[in-house]
């Protein structure tokens, strides 16, 4: 009887201790995450402490699925003029086929937000620029529409607007005679949200796209990059792209 009582006491102490330890584990990272996830105030400039990046898992990217592309078109009001050769396209699906084995793969291709972007190097006016947090943008106020950047981009990521536009969205100003490309949904990112393509991919449960701060070792994307092998497209160009791919 006494032994039983002792065992119960020990058991209680042990279980109690474990519970406290578990509680400690779950509360501490929770608090930490909350601090990290705090949005940057609207009046504070972006800094190079953050570098936005994207990881795309081509194994999860479904053949024939176009959700990221439609989400991008809708988000930025990219309407076509029935001329697919020149219609604006910020993200597109590319199918890869191995001629020897016939194996096919599908992946979304967008601006790779390079650390050393060739589009910025060649821009004669300084319209093409890289923001401190690694997002490569076109300042359309300065762009003269020369399209050197379109030639320089190895990923064919940029489009030129050929037509007069009307009813643009306030968060995505676009106009004739300027070059444009994926902005990593900078208007969303500045508001602590993820890009529209990533949101659409996750909403459809494909989860092929992860977006986050690759400078933060605790971010989801950094953990995945650390854990799995990933590749840059045309890594030989040493551009250190912000968009990485798994499974190619």
């Amino acid at each position, binding site marked *: 009887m006494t032994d039983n009582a002792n065992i119960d006491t020990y058991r209680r102490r042990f279980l109690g201790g474990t519970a406290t330890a578990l509680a400690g584990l779950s509360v501490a990272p929770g608090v930490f995450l909350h601090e990290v996830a705090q949005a940057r105030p609207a009046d504070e*400039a972006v800094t190079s402490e953050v570098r936005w990046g994207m990881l795309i898992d081509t194994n999860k990217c479904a053949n024939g699925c176009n959700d990221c592309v*439609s989400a991008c078109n809708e988000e930025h009001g990219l309407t*076509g003029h029935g001329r697919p050769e020149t219609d604006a*396209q910020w993200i*597109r699906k590319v*199918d890869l086929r191995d001629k020897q084995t016939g194996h096919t793969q599908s992946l979304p291709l967008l601006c790779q937000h390079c650390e050393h972007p060739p589009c910025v190097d060649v821009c004669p006016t300084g319209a093409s620029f890289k923001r401190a947090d690694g997002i490569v943008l076109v300042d359309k106020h300065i762009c003269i529409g020369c399209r050197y950047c379109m030639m320089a981009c190895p990923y064919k990521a940029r489009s030129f607007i050929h037509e007069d536009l*009307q009813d*643009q*969205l306030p968060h995505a100003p676009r106009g004739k005679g300027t070059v444009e490309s994926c902005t990593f949904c900078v208007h969303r990112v500045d508001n602590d949200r993820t890009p529209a393509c990533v949101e659409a991919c996750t909403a459809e449960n494909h989860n092929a796209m992860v977006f986050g701060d690759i400078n933060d070792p605790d971010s989801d994307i950094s953990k995945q990059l650390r854990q799995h092998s990933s590749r840059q497209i045309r890594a030989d160009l040493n551009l250190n792209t912000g968009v990485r791919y798994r499974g190619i």
Partner: protein
Amino acid sequence: MRNLMQKSLRILLSLTVMAGLPASASAGSDSLLPAVPEAQDRYSATQGCVEPTAEMRRNHMEYILHQRDETVHRGIRTKQYSLEQCINCHVSDAPDAPRYKNDEHFCSSCHSYAAVRIDCFQCHADRPVKTPGMNSLSGHVESDNKPAALSAEPHQALATEVISHD
């Protein structure tokens, strides 16, 4: 106390009406002065626009230009001097509201009078746009009205590009 409040409210109202009078008087077709449409709202109880009206009339372009660079290059998205907020307040969101090419548009009313051509609206929205889900940015109240750009069917992507490799 209540009387005093009513009294001051009455004075404020009459002041507002009086301030509006010269504008509406000059809006007559025989006047040479531009007919500038009234704003939808006031910045505060004491101030109509984000800076005193005289300052805005003379220097609005400086504020907008400064904000433009701050937003595009540094990601600063404060609303006080943003062009989007100018439009939200100064242009009606009625479907038949005049567009920027029309002299009755707030910006064009004065700019055509002063013969200063602006190209803001070749890219920027020239009237308030209610974007579903974007209200936290634009400060709009959520609405079911889709902007025209969204009601048009987003274009289909270029038929998927196929790259073969050995």
